[in-house]
């Protein structure tokens, strides 16, 4: 619910502008990355993913960029809309079995879109 947004970095953008949300991941062995969107009172929802053999992947209005050299992931949202207001999480995992295959989540960024 609303308490998810407390203590989070916040990005405030004007409707129609582009948004860039950044994420630094921790495990250099991670080879799969996901962005999730979480609206207030709901569970996280898959947006887009990327594998480590790619630098960029595009979806509908969203683009994910991966820089393995500095372990950095970004989500770009084009023409941001009020419906994009949410908390955004990056997540990482590896192809390894056991606990290595479980998703590890970042702490999230709150996106606020001003009309």
């Amino acid at each position: 619910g609303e308490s998810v947004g407390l203590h989070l970095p916040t990005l405030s953008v004007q409707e129609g502008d582009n948004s860039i949300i950044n994420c630094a991941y921790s495990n250099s062995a991670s080879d799969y990355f996901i962005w999730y969107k979480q609206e207030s009172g709901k569970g996280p929802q898959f947006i887009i993913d990327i594998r480590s053999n790619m630098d960029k992947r595009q979806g509908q209005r969203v683009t994910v960029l991966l820089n393995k050299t500095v372990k950095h992931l970004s989500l770009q949202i084009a023409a941001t809309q009020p419906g994009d207001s949410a908390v955004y999480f990056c997540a990482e995992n590896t192809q390894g079995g056991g606990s290595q295959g479980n998703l590890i989540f970042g702490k999230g960024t709150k996106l606020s879109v001003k009309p």
Partner: protein
Amino acid sequence: DAGITQSPRHKVTETGTPVTLRCHQTENHRYMYWYRQDPGHGLRLIHYSYGVKDTDKGEVSDGYSVSRSKTEDFLLTLESATSSQTSVYFCAISRVQGYTEAFFGQGTRLTVV
């Protein structure tokens, strides 16, 4: 939306009482997960299951147990609830482990007083 149902959606319980949260899926996915979400900590894995009767610990498993007697159901039990377990709990499922997204339920808000 993936067919994941969590119950109850909200619960208030007293310290020291046992609590069981249920996750039910209709996707026949092999892997099921329980996460907790707290301000400043994001989503942290409590336990996960890789098949019927096959479970393993996650990052924050102390004070929690799980059971999976059927593919579709994954139960999370707090044997003796404490105030530190006040949180929002999410169940998630995935078809395989690694290299794939997980689908999340709507969450259960648990308050321990």
